[in-house]
Each structure stands twice: as structure tokens, then as C-alpha cells.
């Protein structure tokens, strides 16, 4: 590197979630496959879940296995275990969300944690109190875990660095949504028996999608291949990670995919000049009943929600036998219980 200033001393922050500062540059397996020779787990217990880029395959597997145990709790008459009794989880939502917030809330309650929900519109600056002050206040009030959703990338990292609580990123800007990616991995593993060697097509507005970004990290780390398919204006064309590639022709890749995951397309994308019209978008990238017929038998349809039925996905496709969209939602609770259990119980 040319940076003439040497990085050294305490200022070398890395973005590893282990200490809230810092960065284990995503170790990438050269051939995109695991399991041999995976990145060694970083020293010390993990304190935060900010993205999947610093999770090893082993750690991801640990979360998924824990979610298996959590799923058993969900099947009981009393869907509750005292695993996090006396721990306080604060859902700190700076951006509107129903499913993710409720999912985290149910997960925390299933583990007997005390749950506080806090929502604020817009940014902390508009609200008049800084994000850091808010986070410190929550910790002073007893928060052990801060689950944060924010419209701006990196907000959870700022909280992780400045507050003495475990931080779980529930979606930050277009950056990351690790719990969603983990539940996607879990659902695929549950349905198809594994992840290595699969080919997953993520279709549509990848550029603005935090779900896609976290899925790229998670899937490639587990040895799956990711195809990002969409118009050039909606793909993060500068992104280069092992195990992923860009495509523009959905019909060409459809027969190769084991999983097809259309992303929500927002009307504003047409207004901003990124696509000509939703009509043309559907024609080229909509997962229609017609296209469903050309998919592999047994291939899965997933959608992170909320859907625009009739635009990026036909309603008949969403409810077809190949669709696992509902399982994604119920598995989300098990995954979030697993994350909360693994992060919230640790002595700080």
C-alpha cells in the first residue's frame, strides 16, 4: 500500500466486532470454497454482530446450530426459556421496521430477557441527541444488548465503539443486515441440507440492499456461489469479492440457480433514473410464474420482504411450493434467539 503513514500503535482500529473497533479484513477463501483452511477465529469472545464479513464459517455454523436448539423451544407449549433472565435488550430503531423489530422482540422475550423498544424517526442529529449519547444513556439504564436499525451505514459501529453493550446490527443503511442473512442461510441449509456448492441468484436492486451485501459475505463464506443479477445501474459494480459475479440476463442464469432471491424494488428507483419504469423492470427481472417454470426442480424462492407482489415477484410465485418465504420469517425468530443468546449472556 502507498499510504505513507504507517499504521501502528493503538490507533490501528480494525473493525472486528470483537472489540468494536476494528477490522479483520474479510478473509476470503481463494477458491471460494471451504471448509478446509478457514480463517482462524479471532482471539477473544465476540461481542458484537455488525456484519458477517468478520464471521468465520465455523462461527456461522455455530449460530445456525444454536438456532436449531432455539427452534425446538418454538415448538413447545411454553415457548420460553430463561436463558437471558435478568438481561436487558434494547431495540433501538431509527428507521421504520415491523418485521425485524417484532422478530427481535419475540426472540428476546422467548429467552426471558427484559425488552425495551425505542424508536426515533430520522437521524440522531435531527432528534437533537447524538447517537453516542443515546447509546450511553441506554447502557446506563442497564442495557446489555443494543439491537440497532439505522438508515445510515456504520451507525452500529459507532455505537459498538462507544457504548459498553453488545451490539447487534438490525440493518444499517445499504451496508449490512446480518441477522437476515443468517436466517436466509439457515432456511437454505434446512431445506437443501447444506450450503457449500450451491448457486444463489440475488436479483434486482443489489446496490441499495443491505440484505444482499450480508448474504454475499455469508453465502460465499459457507462455500456457495452468488450471482448478482440486475440492471447495471442497480448493481454495486465496484464490489469484488471471491465467489460472486455479476450478470444482467436473468433468463440465462435462472436454470442454473438453486436459490432465487428477488429483492424489493422501490418506485423511487425509476424516479431517480436508475431504471426506466417498473414495467420494464418486471419484464426483465420480475420472478414471474413463467420464469418459475424454467427454474430447476427443487430450487427455492426466497424474499427478504416486504414484497411488491406483481413487480419483482408474482404473488403466485411467492405462494408456490418452492417458496420458503414464510419459513424465513419463522426461522428469523430462532436465528435472533441464537444471536441474542450467544452475545447477551457473556460477562462484560
Amino acid at each position, binding site marked *: 500500500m502507498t499510504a505513507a503513514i504507517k499504521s501502528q500503535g493503538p490507533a490501528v482500529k480494525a473493525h472486528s466486532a470483537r472489540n468494536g473497533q476494528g477490522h479483520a479484513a474479510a478473509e476470503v477463501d481463494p477458491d471460494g470454497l471451504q471448509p478446509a483452511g478457514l480463517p482462524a477465529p479471532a482471539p477473544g*469472545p465476540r461481542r458484537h454482530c455488525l456484519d458477517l464479513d468478520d464471521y468465520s464459517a465455523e462461527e456461522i455454523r455455530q449460530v445456525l446450530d*444454536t438456532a436449531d*436448539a432455539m427452534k425446538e423451544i418454538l415448538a413447545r407449549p411454553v415457548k420460553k*426459556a430463561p436463558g437471558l433472565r435478568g438481561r436487558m435488550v434494547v431495540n433501538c430503531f431509527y428507521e421504520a421496521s415491523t418485521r425485524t423489530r417484532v422478530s427481535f422482540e419475540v426472540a428476546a422475550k422467548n429467552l426471558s430477557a427484559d425488552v425495551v423498544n425505542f424508536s426515533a424517526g430520522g437521524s440522531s442529529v435531527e432528534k437533537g441527541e447524538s447517537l453516542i449519547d443515546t447509546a450511553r444513556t441506554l447502557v446506563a439504564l442497564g442495557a*446489555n444488548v443494543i439491537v440497532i436499525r439505522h438508515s445510515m451505514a456504520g451507525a452500529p459501529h459507532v455505537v459498538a465503539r462507544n457504548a459498553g453493550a453488545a451490539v447487534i446490527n438490525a440493518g444499517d443503511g445499504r451496508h449490512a443486515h446480518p441477522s437476515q442473512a443468517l436466517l436466509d442461510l439457515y432456511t437454505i441449509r434446512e431445506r437443501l441440507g447444506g450450503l457449500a456448492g450451491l448457486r444463489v441468484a440475488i436479483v434486482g436492486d443489489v446496490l441499495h440492499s443491505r440484505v444482499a451485501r450480508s448474504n454475499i459475505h455469508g453465502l460465499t463464506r459457507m462455500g456457495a456461489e452468488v450471482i448478482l443479477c440486475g440492471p447495471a445501474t442497480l448493481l454495486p459494480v465496484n464490489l469484488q469479492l471471491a465467489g460472486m459475479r455479476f450478470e444482467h440476463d436473468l433468463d440465462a442464469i435462472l436454470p442454473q440457480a438453486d436459490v432465487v432471491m428477488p429483492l424489493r424494488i422501490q418506485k423511487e428507483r425509476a424516479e431517480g433514473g436508475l431504471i426506466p419504469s417498473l414495467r420494464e423492470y418486471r419484464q426483465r427481472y420480475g420472478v414471474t410464474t413463467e420464469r418459475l417454470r424454467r427454474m430447476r426442480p427443487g430450487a427455492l424462492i426466497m424474499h427478504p420482504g416486504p414484497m411488491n407482489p406483481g413487480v419483482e415477484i408474482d404473488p403466485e410465485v411467492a405462494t408456490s411450493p418452492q417458496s420458503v418465504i414464510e419459513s424465513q420469517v419463522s426461522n428469523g425468530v430462532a436465528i435472533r434467539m441464537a444471536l441474542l443468546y*450467544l452475545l447477551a449472556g*457473556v*460477562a462484560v
Partner: protein
Amino acid sequence: MYSDVEAAARNGSDHLPSSGGKLIMSADDMRRALTRIAHEIIEHNRGVRQLVLVGMRTRGVPIARRLAERLDEFEGVQVPVGELDITLYRDDIGLRAVQPMVGSTAIPVDVSDKIIVLVDDVLFTGRSVRAALDALIDYGRPRAIQLAVLVDRGHRELPIRPDYVGKNVPTSQTEDVAVRLRETDGQDGVEIVSREVRA
């Protein structure tokens, strides 16, 4: 037994250290003890009706299965066997640096109005059993819960006593009881290991 779980968390596996301790139960002793316990269960409950065996993970599970085989042999009834993971019910959440992995729990029948025989390998402080009682009650309201252990080593910290005991073994706090089973460890036997050896 807590120290087992913790050792497992530390080692990342369920392996006990290889021998080096004093053998207190041979494979034959173990077989005889389990046979006796099976008879006691039948006698005490006047048969095996409404009985469910629940093994506490890890080594309570194969012991429960062996007891079930004997009950089938003596009474000709297949008693349901469940397995219970108590991790989420432990009383030391938040006191550790790393969370222990949560294992699977599978209770094949509704426990309401059943007589549950909880099975573990070693009874020590009683904390695991306390956790198991809480866990079981989350599955319903059993008519009764009884406790069977292969070894009772004393040092209780809670008011818990076993209904069926394979062997009472006086130990000191600096010793550990290592139970080995065919199913999990390749061979049967119980040893006392001093903690210095384990460390």
C-alpha cells in the same frame, strides 16, 4: 454435572481426560447397578405405566436408554426416552466469558401427568438437576419427577436428593468423577480423577 459442561465448553468437546485416576466402577459394576436401578424403578412405581425416562445431556441420555432396554426386558413395555439440554436453564448466565453451546432437546411425548425419571451420570452440587426440573416443567405438568443417577458424589449445594443411585462415592472437592460410556467414550467405567491431573 456442571464441571463437565464447563470442561466441554473449555475443550470444545465432550471428551473426558483419559485415565490416570482410580477406577471405582468397572463395566460389570455399572451393568449390575443399572439393572438394580431398573428393578427399583419398577418396584417403586408398581410397574412402568405412565413412565417417561429423560436423560440429561450428554451422558444421562445413553444411561436412560440402557435403563429403558432393561424396563422393556423385565416388563415388556417400551418406555419413552427423551433427552434434555439444560444450558438455557443454568444459573450462571452472564458469569462466563463464552456462552456454552446449546444442545438439542427432544421430549417425544407430552409430559403432563406422566412420571418422569430424570437420569444423569453424576449428582454433585444439584444445580444441574435444579435446571433440569425448571426445563421439564416448561414442557407441561408431570405427576411426579424422580431422579436416577449412576454416581452420587455428595457436596450438594441445593436441597435435592436422588431416588435411585448406582453408587455413592465419597469425594473431595479437588477430585472429579469421570464417567465413561460405550456410546460416548468407547468403553464403560467410572474413575476418580484428581483435578491436578485434569488440569
